[in-house]
């Protein structure tokens, strides 16, 4: 078998005396779609930062393609949450930065063909020359995915890429990420609050809870029993019309949108 794209062995992360997660074992193979769920502060984004090489593990081992993570590795693509881009750079410029924005110098080589190809792959060709700030949230995320693909990554880290998108765009963006991993063979580590848009594509769920974590097939992890154990408090997982609702004892509904 080939080297896993990502391998965490007995991994733990602590800030001072606060343990965020520990004893984490996870092997992600090429082309796998792993959805990372959990309440705020459960260390989802920190996990991504560990993979990016921005944060060291407190204990355990991590390997990306068999090597310790390295800052700026071209094997790792990063799709951030949608945020307003103030500066008037065009969609194609953002993608171009994904190709060689980390190199010194003003940049001599024209990369136009490569940028066009990347934009075409995510269906963003028609707004290639529009400033990013003038694009809708869904369009911006398409451009972000093209940017993340620019370095030919073996794994895509998606950090809440659906946040502040409406339901239709959420589905479009998730669909695109799924199509991308099928086309490129890149693994996906998808951090999200919204479980339903990603559920159809998810191979495995990693649920980071306050009282532990669980990894496995969505149907095995997203059960009242498992989540009650992970939260250390009564949790109900309800399935309605093919959608998963996670309801805590405070009546608060997680992982769903009430304002469709």
């Amino acid at each position, binding site marked *: 078998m080939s080297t896993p794209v990502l391998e965490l062995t007995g991994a733990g992360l602590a800030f001072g005396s606060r343990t965020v997660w520990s004893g984490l074992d996870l092997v992600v193979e090429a082309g796998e779609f792993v959805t990372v769920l959990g309440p705020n502060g459960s260390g989802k984004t920190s996990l991504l930062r560990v993979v990016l090489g921005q944060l060291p593990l407190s204990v355990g081992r991590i390997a990306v393609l068999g090597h310790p993570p390295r800052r700026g590795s071209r094997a790792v693509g990063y799709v951030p949450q949608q945020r307003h881009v103030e*500066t008037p750079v065009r969609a194609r410029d953002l993608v171009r930065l994904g190709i060689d924005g980390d190199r*010194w*110098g003003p940049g001599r080589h024209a990369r136009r063909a490569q940028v066009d190809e990347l934009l075409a792959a995510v269906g963003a060709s028609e707004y290639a020359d529009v*400033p990013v700030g003038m694009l809708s949230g869904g369009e*911006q995320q398409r451009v972000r995915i093209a*940017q993340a693909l620019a*370095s030919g990554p073996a794994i895509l880290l998606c950090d809440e890429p659906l946040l502040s998108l409406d339901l239709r765009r959420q589905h479009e963006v998730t669909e695109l990420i799924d199509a991308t991993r099928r086309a490129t063979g890149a693994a996906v580590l998808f951090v999200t609050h919204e479980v339903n848009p990603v559920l159809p594509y998810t191979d495995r769920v990693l649920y980071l809870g306050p009282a532990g974590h669980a990894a496995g097939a969505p149907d095995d992890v997203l059960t009242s029993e498992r989540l009650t154990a992970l939260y250390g408090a009564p949790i109900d997982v309800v399935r309605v019309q093919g959608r998963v609702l996670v309801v805590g004892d405070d009546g608060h509904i997680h992982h769903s949108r009430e304002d469709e």
Partner: protein
Amino acid sequence: MTDDWWARLVDFSDYGQLLPLVTNSLVAGSLLALVGGLVGVFVVQRDLAFAVHGVSELSFAGASAALLFSLDVSLGAVAGSLVAALLIGLLGARARERNSIVGVLMPFGLGLGVLALALYPGRAANKFGLLTGQIVAVDDARLTAMVAIAAVVVGGLLVVWRPLTFASVDPDVAAARGVPTRALSLVFMLLLGLAVAMAVQIVGALLVLSLLITPAAAAVRVTASPVWVPVLAVLFAQVSAVGGILLALGASVPISPYVTTISFAIYLACRFVGGRRARRGWVRRPARQAAAGGTIAG
């Protein structure tokens, strides 16, 4: 009365004799425009307009102190700006912190400068020159210093151009891609400090923004191309600086109003043109997509 007033503003008699006297100023103005246009691109991207103003007040303080103690004024200006740029760069990584630090430093710098000027026994014109600009004060030694500073700033910017652009427009992804965003931020503050020190000696501390921000702010109104923004910014700065000096030549008022007025007029024109472009959706897009377009920046 009006004629007299106008004659003080625009007077082209004896122009032929005056021109050779300001060759140095024209070269200095042109260098400053090159530096200001390029630095301005990143000032606008990084939202540093207020920081530029703060750095320029400390540069003014440094220059005034140098004047008082009979030291080299250029050196004083550079020292003042570098200290300010370093402090702002180190203490104000986030925009909100940065603004309060600038707000704290600026009046302090201005106060120090006023104190030094009040104690300075020399000619009043020298004093006000540092605040509002001076046209004929560029001697060969100062010009050499300016050439050196310009070379450092332009050379430095070229080296960090791509990663600095990445870190400025897209900090999160840049950091994920291993771009040393914090170090670049400090490097840029230092280059900015040098540029401000140059500008203070030509257009004066109060009006530095007219060459370090207005041209680039005008350029981003009409284009988003990474090539055209710096080209237009430098062009606008050249027209403002060199044009301003040429206009001010025959007049008996300082150079700054000419520079600031030209650069402001360019900005207004660009806003007008850019506003029309933005309303039309910037580039032609199929109707379906235009309807789905999001918020319009500016």
